[in-house]
């Protein structure tokens, strides 16, 4: 049902160091805080962290899966409030869900929830889609 207040099913993505390397290559963002643990620790981070834009790209995949493909997104925004921490040899979760907050014709506004290890990582995450 597409009506305001509907909560969409949760989906879990898994991130590991290999995915961060793949995103670095695909996006061109080779900042070592996303790949090199020693470097990440040296700048005061708890471990290697995922690119905020990788987190947002995965949340975007959640949105486009629901909306019917990448062509259906008109607006997409998020605040990077906490990093997704990606230790070596472990898979870290990114758990995404959404609530329909507005329906105007075929334009649907979603408010997204994105957490990792139970901690909210994206704030004010919203998308406007056509479906």
């Amino acid at each position, binding site marked *: 049902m597409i009506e305001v207040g509907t909560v969409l099913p949760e989906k879990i*993505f898994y991130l590991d160091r290999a*995915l961060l390397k*793949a*995103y670095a*290559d*695909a*996006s*061109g*963002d080779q900042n070592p805080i996303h790949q090199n643990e020693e470097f990440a620790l040296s700048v005061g981070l708890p471990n290697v962290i995922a690119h*905020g*834009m*990788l987190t*947002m*790209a*995965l949340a*975007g*995949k959640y*949105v*486009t899966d629901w909306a019917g*493909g*990448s*062509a259906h*997104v*008109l*607006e*997409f*925004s*998020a*605040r*990077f409030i906490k990093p997704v921490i990606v230790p070596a040899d472990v898979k870290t979760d990114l758990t995404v869900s959404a609530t329909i907050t507005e329906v105007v014709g075929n334009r649907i506004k979603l408010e997204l929830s994105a957490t990792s290890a139970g901690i909210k990582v994206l704030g*004010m995450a919203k998308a406007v889609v056509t479906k």
Partner: protein
Amino acid sequence: MINPDSVGRTFKGVDQVTVTQSDIDAFAAVIGETDTTVAPPTFSIRISLSQYESILTQPEIGVNWSRLVHGDQKFEIFRPVIAGDVFTCSATIESLRVAAGNEIISVRSDLHNGAELVVSAWSTLVVRG
């Protein structure tokens, strides 16, 4: 320090960036998207961020890229990005403020394919003091 005179100004990117199918395929593969007829919604950030880096680090603006953290991101997508798009990218510095020793810069990039505006993207970038 970022030059406060840069606020409100629009800087043109120096490069034209051609989107290739292999660029889209690589980006889509990372997030598990198998339909690559159009680019995923956040794909254009790879163009905006690289153009920001070359524009904002110019001495007349003075952003220290090595101390940069991405604060937030917004996209308005007027049509999906596709292979063969040739983008010029501008950067407009919309605001600059200092909080807790960090410089917080809001910048908008408009990606044009010829005269057609395809994506507008707003980024808040934090230069850690």
